[in-house]
């Protein structure tokens, strides 16, 4: 079995500003965001819709360029999309004309490994996300949860330094979501990547993260950063988690009134 | 949607190629590179154009074609609507009629001409019959598909509200299928137009753009042919604007 060789990286966001032009008017998506994520940390970014959390993730991934400020991954600046960030989108974006295995293998195209090694790596990932037996299935044959898992496997294929998840479980039903949350934790603990996950689900953030970044909107900025001091493994119905969830929910609700 | 069509900014780059071709054409014909009957100089074409626009023949040809396409389209379209609704609403009618309809459609449109001229002679009837046939198929097929694809959810509402057959058709099926029906009518008009030119060309009697083209070819008048081709191009563009869809196949 191939062991992880990549170093998990830190993420530094320094005073980032980003605006978009919508219908001729300028929309300030992010204003003065500064944030640090330690290597190996699991950080959730939560906030009401329109607060710019997806934009922030895309900036870290290099898919957008900030108007002002800098983004650093593992002490080198972000200049564009690269394989050192694994990103899983909310719509799984698996290529419909490739099988699950082929899709995952896309992440390995750039690695100088032999065919056999790549096949093994793909199999390992397939097993990791629990899709054993579906290597040759096409995306249209998979359920939502399965497709999402394949998408996560693809993002892990290149052994990225950080894993960016943009509301990965948003499109799933409650039962599948609960199962996938446990899977995410398991994957994170196994792979020991740095994870930055955007979510709107309070319970999810509290269950999975080391720290939670609460964002506000109009303009998009960091309102608070909460530390989840609850030791792992965290039982779903722990009292401490419930209190924290309630706190978070209140914070978010307050913003909605504005 | 209308606003988009009207407010489209004209991209000036579009005119570069036509102008360049025009210039090359003028040069080539003045240098007598090609037989002047084949490559008529642009000046000659322009002169002929002015002449034609001033005369009666051109306008009567255009007018006749337009009249024919309207007549044929109305006939074929009406028939197509009726048949389409019947086949789309009644399962039995569909089982009986659809195979024949789809089969008849497979026959290339102009292949019907020899039969039509044998039955109806060389006159207007054969031409209009072909145009009606051209319009009939797209209208019938699209209408049938539209009616058949009305979602069961809506039909169930009708059943729950105890609609009788006719009310169901009038209140649920036709409105729900209206998009497909309109598409069918648009395609039918486009096909009818192509059928008109073809029928006129092949059944070479009377007046019309197709007939004028045929005469021009017999007289070896490339300039007249080019002018009518330009006319057709412009009319085609106008048709697209009316129909708001691009002609993809003949």
């Amino acid at each position, binding site marked *: 079995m191939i062991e992880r060789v990549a170093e998990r990286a830190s993420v530094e966001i320094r005073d980032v500003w980003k605006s978009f032009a919508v219908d001729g008017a300028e929309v300030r998506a992010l204003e003065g965001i500064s944030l640090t994520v330690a290597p190996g940390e699991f950080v959730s970014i939560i906030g009401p819709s329109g607060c710019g959390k997806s934009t922030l993730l895309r900036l870290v991934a290099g898919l957008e360029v900030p108007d002002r400020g800098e983004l650093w991954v593992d002490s080198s600046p972000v200049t564009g999309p*690269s394989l050192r960030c694994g990103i899983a989108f909310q719509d799984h974006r698996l290529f419909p004309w490739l099988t699950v295995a*082929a899709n995952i293998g*896309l992440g390995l195209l750039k690695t100088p490994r032999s065919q056999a090694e790549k096949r093994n790596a793909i199999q390992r990932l397939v097993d990791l996300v629990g899709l054993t037996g579906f290597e040759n299935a096409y995306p249209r044959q998979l359920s939502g949860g399965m497709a999402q898992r394949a998408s996560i496997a693809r993002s892990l294929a290149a052994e990225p330094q950080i894993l960016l998840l943009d509301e990965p479980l948003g499109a799933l039903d409650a039962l599948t979501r609960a199962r996938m949350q446990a899977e995410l934790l398991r994957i994170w603990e196994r792979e020991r990547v740095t994870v930055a996950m955007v979510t709107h689900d309070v319970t999810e953030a509290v269950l999975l993260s080391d720290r939670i970044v609460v964002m506000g909107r109009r303009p998009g900025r960091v309102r608070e950063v909460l530390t989840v001091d609850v030791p792992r493994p965290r039982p779903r119905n722990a009292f401490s988690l419930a209190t924290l969830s309630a706190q978070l929910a209140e914070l978010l609700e307050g913003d909605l009134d504005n | 949607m209308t606003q988009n069509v009207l407010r489209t900014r004209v991209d000036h*780059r579009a005119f570069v190629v036509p102008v360049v071709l025009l210039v090359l054409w003028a040069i080539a014909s003045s240098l007598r590179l090609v037989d002047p009957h084949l490559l008529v100089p642009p000046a000659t074409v322009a002169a002929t154009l002015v002449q034609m626009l001033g005369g009666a023949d051109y306008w009567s040809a255009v007018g006749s074609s337009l009249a024919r396409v309207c007549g044929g389209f109305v006939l074929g379209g009406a028939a197509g609507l009726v048949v389409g609704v019947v086949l789309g609403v009644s399962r039995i009618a569909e089982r009986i009629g659809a195979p024949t309809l789809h089969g008849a459609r497979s026959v*290339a449109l*102009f292949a019907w001409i020899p039969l039509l001229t044998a039955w109806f002679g060389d006159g207007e009837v054969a031409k209009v019959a072909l145009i009606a046939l051209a319009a009939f198929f797209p209208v019938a097929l699209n209408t049938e598909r539209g009616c058949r694809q009305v979602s069961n959810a809506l039909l169930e509402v009708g059943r729950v509200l105890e609609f009788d057959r006719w009310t169901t058709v009038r209140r649920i099926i036709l409105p729900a299928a209206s998009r497909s029906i309109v598409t069918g009518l648009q395609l039918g008009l486009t096909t009818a137009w192509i059928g008109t030119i073809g029928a006129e060309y092949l059944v070479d009697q009377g007046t019309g753009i197709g007939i004028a083209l045929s005469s021009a070819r017999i007289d070896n008048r490339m300039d007249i042919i080019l002018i009518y081709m330009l006319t057709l191009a412009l009319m085609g563009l106008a048709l697209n604007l009316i129909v708001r869809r691009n002609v993809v*196949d003949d």
Partner: protein
Amino acid sequence: MATRFASFVKPIAAQPGVCSVKRPSLRWWIDPRTIALGLLLPVTIVVAWSIAVRLEIMRPQILPSPLTVLATARDLFVGGELLAALGISLGRVVVGLAIGSLLGILVGIATGRSRTIDAYFGPTIRGICQIPTIAWLPFFMIVFGIGEGLKLALIAKASFLPLFVNTSAAMRAAPERFHEVADVLELDRWQRLRLVVLPAALPLVASGFRMGLSNAWHVLVVVEMVAAAAGVGHLMAWSRTLFQLDAVFVTIVVIGITGWAMDATMRLIESRLSPWTANA
């Protein structure tokens, strides 16, 4: 070193838990009641036709009896005339289609991938394509005479348009979100072409080809009716001149069946080539 995915792309075997692929339902074929109903109308027509012939509603020259038509069909088929004509016609279609579709694809790729080229050449090409193919007949007749060149030119023109339009659109068929995935995966230009652009383009190009084939067949029939010494269209026109309407009927049916068969085959190929599209 590009990874070859051939080893991963295996045929979809039935796997536990995997939803089965939608196959075109063949059952309408086999259900006897459906076949009976479907044949009802044609049979009624034939019966009415026979009665009309018997009652001599139209002159026998212009309404031959169904039996005569059948006999003529047999004669033409057995005598080899029909197959020979069909062969010539199909040969013309193949060559004309090849020329037209190749040009259409090339121009489509150029205008599809480069907005600049599209801005310059697109409107002119589309404008020219507004002219119905039949209106090109006199033009090409003067240019090419009435030889093979005429037919091939017309067939090529007819098959050009759908391929041009579809290929042009197909170049931009891959949605932006797939290109973003390609960005993140750091795919180079060739990998992007092979793994994103071409697979996404395939369904549209295939359907464009199917339309091109259909156009080619339609146009061929007309050209052969007007300016040919051989082929099914010529056979039909010639029979009509000789007032042999039974032969005309036969040719109409043959033209229809051939057209349908080619279309059905193309649809099958299309669904095989791009099984992931909803139309499969």
